[in-house]
């Protein structure tokens, strides 16, 4: 039996998914589910809702596959749909859930290595709260870059802006986040 493992490219999986192979779409979801969940969590402010948000968004992504123009860029395309779903979710729940209570209720895993970790529990809480206080536009670029792990190019694609814009927006968002952290 040949056991050569050649992972299909994103574009291959997109082609298969478009041809009706749901397992191929599942593979795409599997590749980017962590990014999708984290993105949904930070944009909505509610990790508890992230799985529902991501699920809803990815079902929509499946339906929208025919509209994807560049299959090689399926990752930022999918994550943009997740981000939009998270923003919609945020709007629908904002009245009932105050922002501070959402971002202030994050649960974080214990420090993996106290020697190298930069966040203790209090820092993590303050950082989450600060993320909740900055503008949605700033939060979004940080979410793509640091929570979804997108490159500047991919973030540019997700935001539909030039790569240089991503760099400046990221720097600005970090500065504002730093200010928020410093005020606490």
């Amino acid at each position: 039996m040949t056991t050569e493992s050649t992972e299909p490219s994103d574009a291959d999986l997109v082609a298969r998914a478009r041809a009706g192979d749901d397992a191929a779409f599942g593979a795409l979801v599997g590749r980017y589910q962590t990014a999708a969940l984290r993105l949904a969590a930070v944009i909505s402010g509610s990790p508890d809702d992230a799985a529902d948000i991501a699920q809803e968004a990815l079902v929509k992504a499946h339906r929208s596959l025919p509209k994807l123009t560049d299959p090689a860029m399926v990752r930022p395309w999918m994550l943009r749909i997740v981000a939009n779903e998270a923003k919609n979710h945020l709007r629908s729940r904002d009245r009932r859930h105050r922002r501070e209570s959402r971002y202030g209720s994050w649960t974080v895993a214990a420090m993996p290595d106290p020697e190298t970790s930069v966040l203790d529990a209090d820092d993590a809480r303050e950082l989450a709260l600060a993320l909740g206080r900055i503008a949605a536009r700033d939060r979004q670029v940080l979410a793509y870059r640091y929570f979804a792990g997108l490159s500047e190019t991919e973030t540019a694609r997700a935001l539909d802006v030039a790569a240089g814009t991503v760099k400046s927006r990221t720097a600005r968002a970090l500065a504002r986040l730093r200010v928020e952290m410093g005020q606490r």
Partner: protein
Amino acid sequence: MIELERALDELAERVQIPGGDWLVGDVLRRVGEPVQHRPRRRVLALAGALVALVAGATLALPGPRHAVARWLGFDSVHIEPGGTVPTTASPPATASTSPTSQTTAVATTTTTAVPPALDLGPDVSMAEAMSRAGLPDPTPALLGRPQSVHVVHPPDSGQIILVYAPSELLPMSPVIGVGALVSVFPAHIEEGFFAKALGNDATVRSVDVPTADGGFWIEGAPHQLFFDSAGQSQLDTLRLATNTLLWQRGDHVYRIEADISLETALRIAASVP
């Protein structure tokens, strides 16, 4: 003052997100729901073929519940809950003492004709099955010689399935006349594909199987297998709605389907040479 970018990376790593493990399966289950609006020709064609072969069977369309961390691209096993089985498609068989029972087999093994609803094809010798499928003999010493041996597809290269009649060790399965199916196929289990099913009682848990690289115990609901080879995915016929033990050994996955306890399944698995 913490280093902000590192802190963001670390927060992303450490934030707890409940329910995310089942995202792939949840998405695919929903994707598979509106079939009537978006027919998937290949799957429907296969489903049609299976329905034709399995009288009375209702085939669940794809909706695998798995949280895959990566895609191997070949011979992966996915489990999906749901679907129904050809429960009573075969009439009750007349039990008789098997003339071929080995001394290692449990007592009172009975022999029946293989229910056609299982869609297993002709009974072949073990030597022929091993030759055709290029697989090892999966016969558990605890069960002894099976009632019949079959080579079926998928996967393309074939899997060996052994049929065991009900016995003291093997209660009657939902398919009358069958106590257990034991099979081996070339595949790799991806742990992330297993998930507790929402909306039904299926549970999947990792178990230690002696002499195996890893195993899973699936309890409480019927399931199907997906075989993903380089460019295609195929439905495996749903045969028994029983508990199932799957375990990986090298490049092969072994499977026992029977209405037995995990303890019994592990004993059987440990007796596979």
